[in-house]
């Protein structure tokens, strides 16, 4: 019990000190604990931060601390109301595909949307709202995944907080014969 608390505090301190998202592998390396234990402890850190001004955001591979979404107004005041430019319809739609289907190739995004998404994808990449990774099935291609910044943009802690996540993900994988 004592040790879990210690690891939780260490992870909190590391995420705070870094500012940027940290890989779970890095957290495991620095703390000397297994990735499995780190992931479990991220779960308890998340709970400890419940109902606080900051929260834990994580993807499968990375974690980061971030302000709670209810704090948007005061934080914006601090940042001099710096307005985050809203995404257009094409942008948010493409983001949805990456969120619910990622990792996903550009050709799959084009296929679903019925139009070429090169331009909109590039904008999302530049804003850091999607990330590009080497396609494990094709070394010369890329796959697109959501990032910690995607979740920040939406003010959620993980993709599991997305509406109908599991259900929609499954439907999108299948043939969707039945409506």
């Amino acid at each position, binding site marked *: 019990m004592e040790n879990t608390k210690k690891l939780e505090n260490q992870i909190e301190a590391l995420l*705070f000190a870094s*500012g*940027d998202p940290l890989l779970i592998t890095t957290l495991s390396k620095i703390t000397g604990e297994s990735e499995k234990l780190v992931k479990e402890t991220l779960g308890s850190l998340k709970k400890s931060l419940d109902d606080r001004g900051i*929260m834990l*955001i994580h993807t499968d591979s990375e974690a*980061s*601390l*971030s*302000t*709670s*979404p*209810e*704090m*948007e*107004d005061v*934080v914006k005041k601090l*940042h001099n109301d710096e307005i*985050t430019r*809203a*995404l*257009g*319809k*094409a942008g*948010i*739609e493409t*983001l*949805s*595909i990456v*969120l*619910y289907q990622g990792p996903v190739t550009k050709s799959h995004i084009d*296929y*679903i*949307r*019925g*139009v*070429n998404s090169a331009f909109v994808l*590039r904008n999302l990449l530049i804003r850091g709202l999607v990330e590009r990774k080497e396609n494990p099935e094709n070394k010369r291609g890329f796959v697109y995944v959501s990032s910690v910044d995607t*979740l*920040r*943009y*939406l*003010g*959620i802690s993980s993709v599991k*907080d*997305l*509406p*109908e996540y599991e259900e*929609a993900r499954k*439907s*999108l994988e299948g*043939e*969707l014969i039945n*409506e």
Partner: protein
Amino acid sequence: MPFDIKTSAYEGPLDLLIALIEKREVFINDISLAQVTEDYIEYINSLEERDIDNMSEFVLVASTLVLIKSKSLLPKLDLSPEEQESIDDLETRVKKYRLIKSLTEKIIEISSGGESFPRGEMKKQFISFAPSKDMSVENLLTEAKYLIENLPKPEPKKPKVMVEKTISLNDVIDDLKNRIQSNFKMSFNEYSSKSSTKDKAEKVNVIISFLALLELVKQGTVRAEQDEDFKDISIETDSLGVPTY
């Protein structure tokens, strides 16, 4: 976060199809797709080429819709496995895209709960010079060249692919005409590289007159079905020729 939604134009062919289907409040299937085929083609027809960014995609979907429509009007029309696949595929895509659209609405909703921000930058950062071994003049030049090569370039106005796709639509029409006039057996793959340079307006007119022709053929089918003889239909169509609009 607010999202800026432009509702004016349709983003692509699937976007347009969904709007047409939703207007009729019907399920997505081959029947509803056949029902909206005319509306779809009329919509493309009403626009100037310059109004549509993704003309080739719009036209490609139009060719599948024509197949669906043909099949609905002439149930005995034999479709090749490839054709059936392109029809099933279109149905699946429309369904998936519509699901994505409804999820997008929900995402817009949850995001209105507020954005989350990262830790701010700290002025007093501990900085110590820490180069890495891969930092050589050669590597830096290699990466600079890679970046130069991959800089975004302005898109060429009329990509070749698009022209090819529009030609293939004419081929779809020509081919279906032939099949109705003969015995409906021909593979989807067999038409490909005929050269034709019809402009867009003309091409869409071809589709419209073709659909009208199908309607007429359908009437012939009703009569022909009494003796269940396909060849009767072809005689009928031969006598009709291509109507002029």
